[in-house]
């Protein structure tokens, strides 16, 4: 009972109901106007016939008097059809005709009107309807000529019945059809709701069904599925991150704790204590950096509001960072060069882009300056509708199979484990690139690694 109630409350059913009412009114208007028109045409025709008969009979009466009139009427009365005739004296006494009485006969001469009449030989309580006209002939005779309109009434009844029947069928088909459509919709929506409930209950791999019909419900389901997929990705990312955080933050925290114990130990001298405290500060600074990087990544992935993005020159930022790191590279015996095009405008956040590039250059200096002629190239150029910023080194590079993985948070390849770093540099750079609707990829610099950040061009300068 409850489900039936639900069916009646569906939008589809309500729509069917509305259509039914609309069509009923329409059918009624059409049939009523057709009926009225037909009746009007018939009435006009009848009126014409009656007027012609009256004219003819009046003429005959003028020619041959009452006798001629009576003969003529009796002849006409024998002919089949709905015509009625009656001739009476002025007082209303029957002289001739195929009917015996009508209330109109005693009235004043007048226009064509509807009246009732009684046929000869019929009981007094039976009467028929007719359209008739009364004329008073010279010599004070009354002549009534009319036409039975029983068939008009039949027509009207037929139309009325037709209307009733069609309304009945309309109602039946409309209701059943509405229920059918409503039921189908309800089934699909119920299925979607059920899936949604299962997803809410925790089964995040569940997806909404699509029928493949490509209709609006399918489109809705597809979009919701895409949304679920994105949420799933974020959830997976989050749980991976918390695992990694647990691992990569607990290690330095343990070291921190050990140092603190060392400093607190009663038998250590003031110098040892001071050294341990310095180490503690250094350790906590490193932890703060990791936190900062994580927060920046999280914030970048959640997306910045667009009022923090404005048009900035990517080439200029690359120049700044190259200039900032050039002395460090030189100190490490590496050559840091830059090849930068001008007017590379992107819609972005200068601070984050700078931080991203600093991370990439810092990585290159950490891992890419082995070999005998270490060099780092920072370049920025326009490639189609994008701006590509590259940081390339001549170091050992990253093996093909690790290139995707190394962008993930905290992933550090085996040979880099021993060096300082959080394993967040590339993740941060990738998050910043994504925030700018761009991407980050690793390429083989043969030899070495080339990190390419591709950002959509703001396209305002130099076409």
């Amino acid at each position, binding site marked *: 009972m409850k489900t039936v109630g639900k069916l009646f409350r569906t939008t589809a059913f309500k729509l069917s109901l509305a259509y039914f009412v609309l069509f009923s009114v329409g059918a009624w208007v059409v049939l009523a106007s057709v009926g009225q028109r037909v009746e009007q045409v018939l009435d006009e025709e009848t009126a014409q016939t009656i007027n012609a008969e009256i004219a003819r009979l009046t003429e005959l009466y003028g020619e041959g008097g009452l006798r001629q009139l009576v003969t003529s009427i009796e002849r006409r009365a024998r002919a089949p059809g709905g015509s009625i005739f009656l001739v009476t004296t002025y007082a209303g006494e029957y002289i001739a005709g195929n009917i015996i009485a009508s209330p109109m006969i005693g009235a004043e001469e007048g226009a064509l009107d509807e009246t009732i009449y009684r046929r000869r030989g019929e009981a007094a309580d039976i009467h028929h309807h007719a359209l008739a006209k009364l004329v008073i002939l010279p010599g004070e005779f009354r002549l009534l000529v009319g036409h039975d309109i029983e068939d008009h009434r039949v027509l009207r009844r037929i139309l009325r019945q037709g209307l009733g029947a069609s309304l009945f069928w309309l109602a039946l088909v409309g209701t059943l059809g509405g229920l059918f459509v409503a039921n189908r919709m309800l089934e699909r929506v119920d299925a979607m709701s059920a899936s949604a409930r299962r997803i809410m209950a925790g089964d995040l791999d569940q997806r909404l069904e699509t029928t493949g019909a490509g209709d609006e419900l399918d489109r809705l389901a597809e979009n919701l599925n895409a949304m679920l997929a994105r949420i799933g990705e974020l959830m997976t990312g989050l749980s991976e991150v918390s695992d990694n955080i647990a691992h990569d933050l607990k290690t330095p925290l343990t070291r921190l704790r050990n140092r603190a114990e060392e400093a607190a130990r009663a038998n250590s001298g003031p110098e040892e204590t001071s050294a341990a405290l310095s180490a503690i500060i250094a350790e906590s600074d490193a932890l703060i950096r990791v936190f900062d990087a994580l927060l920046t990544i999280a914030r970048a992935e959640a997306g910045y509001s667009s009022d923090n993005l404005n048009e900035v020159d990517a080439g200029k930022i690359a120049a700044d960072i190259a200039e*900032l790191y050039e002395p460090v590279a030189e100190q490490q015996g590496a050559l840091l060069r830059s090849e930068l095009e001008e007017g590379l405008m992107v819609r972005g956040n200068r601070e984050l882009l700078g931080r991203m590039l600093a991370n990439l250059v810092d990585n290159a*200096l950490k891992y890419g300056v082995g070999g005998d002629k270490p060099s780092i190239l920072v370049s920025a150029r326009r490639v189609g509708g994008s701006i590509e910023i590259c940081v390339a080194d001549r170091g050992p590079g990253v093996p093909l199979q690790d290139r995707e993985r190394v962008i993930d948070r905290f992933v550090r390849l085996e040979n880099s484990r021993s060096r300082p770093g959080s394993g967040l540099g590339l993740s941060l750079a990738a998050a910043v690139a994504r925030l700018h609707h761009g991407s980050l990829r690793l390429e083989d610099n043969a030899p070495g690694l080339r990190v390419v950040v591709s950002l959509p061009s703001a396209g305002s300068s130099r076409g």
Partner: protein
Amino acid sequence: MRLLIIEDDREAGNYLVKAFREQGHLAELAADGLAGYALARESQYDVLIVDRMLPKLDGLSLIAGLREQKIDTPVLILSALGQVDDRVKGLRAGGDDYLAKPYAFSELLARVEALARRRSGPRGEDTVYRVGDLQLDRLTREVKIGGEEVVLQPREFRLLEYLMKNAGQVVTRTMLLENVWDYHFDPQTNVIDVHISRLRSKIDKGRATPLLHTIRGAGYMIRENGR
């Protein structure tokens, strides 16, 4: 220097008061936004240190309120929110500097001193800075040691300009990155140190006592010998 610290965390607040007093400054503490606002309106301070998240009246509203009252005491915002857009919001609200928690006290001290000086000293208006025999002309962009011109790269010039503007005061690495390069991230490696050592090789070459000093655990300072 007279400071007002508006910080709701008792322990952190008391630590700051104690640390500033050890440095010879007068520091007062307000434990919530409204109390801090009242104090900042009533008395004269050189710098306000405002925590961003405060009970009763949050830090940014407090600063905006003070600015509306035409109280232009320099404000340094302390905040656990250290992201780029948080910083921008803080400065937009009327803050003069922004430091993310956790921070090194030496960093906070250097920044607070720089803010106080910015207010009192007309140093920013000078066109020629002098430290010992080192002279920097901001208009002609010439640097001379004892009358002899030294050629500096544009960035080296700006680095020296900032150091000399704050002569006798500690400037931290992040302050240098912010004011000379206009980036606000934490330079993880020793990038700034290397720039400083390049500059040092140009201005302290052959000097018995250098002008440019490294302050351990804090940053750098340029000052005349014996001062």
